[in-house]
């Protein structure tokens, strides 16, 4: 009969309408069941795969809980325990980057000798294609993907060319954002260290045994005069380093009082830490 197809289709639409309407009239609609309530009516929604009915997320008031592997723009890790960048300026990330948006300048010591530390690190976020190859091929776990996707600015340049300060985040931030991967990495690191230690111990034991066995055969490798000369040299070097460090600290103090750059950096780091803590809290809430 003509029209049965139409009626059948209308039945489907009615079913959808009823489902969503009734669900939405409830004091707690089902899509908010696992969500995290934040202040000012904001929510983070963890949409289960069984969700039926209304699926719309009212961005920006409501946001999705991002999965751990979500990738957006890379970030650099600051090892808070050791107080240094994890990055060694090896340049592999810049090499594998498909749009070639990473630019690194390696730092050098007072003699102009390059050291394993970046002086500058730029990522052009306008060009970055979020492929995460830099993360995959970084041998030092120094670069990871950030989850922060609200990056809108008025101008491409210079706002979207991120420098080292803007890219660097503390390790805790990363740990809160990528808990599973972070745990796995720490585990691997711990194992490697243990192995190293075991190896070193074995070596020391072997050396000891060797020393015991052939003490008389051993000869001092350097004459006392040589050793004395080396000691003097080392003392001179450390003194120079100390002097420089003091001078450097002065200089940086001056710079910060002049421009307030450092204060801004600190504020940013604080902000990032705060965000990390918030995220960790969210995660905890969502888990238990």
């Amino acid at each position: 009969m003509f029209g049965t197809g139409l009626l059948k289709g209308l039945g489907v639409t009615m079913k959808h309408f009823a489902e969503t309407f009734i669900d939405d009239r409830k004091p707690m609609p089902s899509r908010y069941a696992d969500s995290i309530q934040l202040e000012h009516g904001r929510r983070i929604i963890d949409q289960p795969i069984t969700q039926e009915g209304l699926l719309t997320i009212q961005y920006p008031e409501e946001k999705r809980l991002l999965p751990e592997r979500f990738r957006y723009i890379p970030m650099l890790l600051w090892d808070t325990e050791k107080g240094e960048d994890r990055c060694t300026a090896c340049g592999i990330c810049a090499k594998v980057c498909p749009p070639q948006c990473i630019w690194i300048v390696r730092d050098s010591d007072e003699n102009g000798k390059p050291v394993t530390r970046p002086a500058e690190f730029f990522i052009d976020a306008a060009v970055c294609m979020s492929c995460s190859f830099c993360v995959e091929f970084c041998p030092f776990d120094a670069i990871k993907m950030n989850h922060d996707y609200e990056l809108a600015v008025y101008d491409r340049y210079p706002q979207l060319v991120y420098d080292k300060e803007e890219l660097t985040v503390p390790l805790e931030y990363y740990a809160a954002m990528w808990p599973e991967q972070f745990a796995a990495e720490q585990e691997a690191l711990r194992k490697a260290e243990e192995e190293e230690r075991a190896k070193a111990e074995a070596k020391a034991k072997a050396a000891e045994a060797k020393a015991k066995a052939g003490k008389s055969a051993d000869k001092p490798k350097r004459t006392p005069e040589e050793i004395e000369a080396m000691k003097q040299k080392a003392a001179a070097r450390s003194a120079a380093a100390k002097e420089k460090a003091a001078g450097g600290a002065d200089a940086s103090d001056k710079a910060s009082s002049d421009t307030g750059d450092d204060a801004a950096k600190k504020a940013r780091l604080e902000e990032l830490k705060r965000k990390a803590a918030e995220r960790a809290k969210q995660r905890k809430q969502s888990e238990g």
Partner: protein
Amino acid sequence: MTMSEATAAAEGGSAVGVQVAAENPPVDGAAEDAVIGKWAEDTQEALVIAPDKLTAYLTYLRDRQGYDFLSSVTCVDYSAYGGKLRDGVDERFELVYHLYSTRKGGGPVVLHVRVPENETVASATGIYPGANLQECEVYDLYGIKFEGHPNLRRVLLWDGFNGHPMRKDWKEAYHEADTKPFRSRHPQGDYQWHEDKIPWGKNTTYPTGWDPDSWRAPITYVPVSQAPEDAYSDEFETESIVVNLGPHHPSTHGVFRMLTRIKGETILALEPEMGYLHRNHEKIGERNTWLMNMPFTDRLDYINSMSNNLGYALAVEKLAGIEVPERAQYIRVIMAELTRVVNHTWSIGFILNDLGALQTPALYAIEEREMILDLFEEVSGARLMCNYMRFGGVVRDLTEGWEDRARYLANERLPRALDELDRLLSDNEIVKARGRGVGYLSAKDLLSLSVSGPMIRAAGVPYDIRKAEPYCIYDRFDFDIPTLPEGDIYARYYIRLLEARESVKILQQALRDIPKGEVLGGKGGYTLRPPEGEAYQRIEAPKGELGFYVVSDAKPNPYRYHVRSPSYINLNALGPMCVGYKVADAVVILGAIDIVLGEVDR
């Protein structure tokens, strides 16, 4: 095409399931002296054909050997080739043809035609009309002229573009280096935008003898009537006019133009105009290293980044001989089939949108897409640009609980959703009235126009690469190739629903059998240098036959990287399908081809 022919095609195709080895076609008679050699001994088999005998040999292959499907026509500029395979060959260009048989199934016949600079070649359009757009592309990007081509024009670039960009000696205005990684993007240490280096008007060159001021968009190729004079009844005296549908038009699914000649409401002729989104993907691909191309393939057909990844990974694996672990094989199939469901529900929704059923079917159809994209995001980190496959497997293992969620989707949610779509749309009288008998083209015509995928299956040709030339582990799964005999809009809508159901069937089996183990094997990292040679790998992408043709000269960058994109080549049929129908039908006919402009323009 009559019914008997349709059944003949269907019967011929039923043998497709049996894998037929790619046999060398026996050479006889007229075609005998066409073959003048072999491309190379130890790479994929290919015949070198004398340029003047090309059409004779193609005719022979089509009529005597049953190679009825011209899959890919492309060109390689060998002027900068660093390998040893071509020692002693002077000709600069090499045209490469890949032909398949939809009746026999199995592998291709690969033909190479060597062309010196500034020489013309005979066009294949007389034998395979499907060569039309592909030859236009070769002309546009390489500057090789085809004799006998009905409408050889610049198809992706405009007439004022100086040079042919895929030639190895063509450099873009902001050229930095031939290959990545670049030595330094910022040689003086200060930051520069590339677009600042191409100030239009100062740095732009035009072809010699071409004047931008006097130039008018050519309407010389606006097709004259292809319809018979009595295709419409004219009670009024009307004149035919040329109308542009697009480029900015909601019905074109992107920036795409349909140049039509209409009389009243009836379309007399239609010519697709594209290239607005052209970014020379293939040139970028030649400058990238092998691995760097992977995220770029995401941006081709951005609805199905997973299957683009898969096609490219398979092509390079074929070239470099990389093995894929068992678990990764299963994960790849699962991802490819999930993305097929995504594509087909999306496409069904938007065919209905084009029909005038605004948004309701589309939004119902993409509800499950949301869940599938969540699953993609969980494993790969992104919903659309997944960048998930690597040479030798996939980049990361599935997360905990992912398989259970996918099983719930495959066993309960997706079948239910597809049934609901079926109930909502298939019996609808309006859909039937608008879809039945509209945009008809016979199976024979479609095949000769190199159309592939759901389009030909909706015309009764049971040809599916997953069965005809199985890749990955598709030969282990039990699924059917649904076909419908009608070859109209309604069949093209319905076939997608049926195919999505078959995909769900594959998903159920794959998720049941998936083993534990490694997901990434082989040495397919960023320093990959495949051995010298060429490879062509095609997969059954949701939109049709997606092929990747790669040539290596054992360097870290591909020497040639070509994408045989189904969306682009399926547009061959757009003009012939629209002739004689109304303007409003043309919108739906385009919708039912299911194009994505990222893939059309590349």
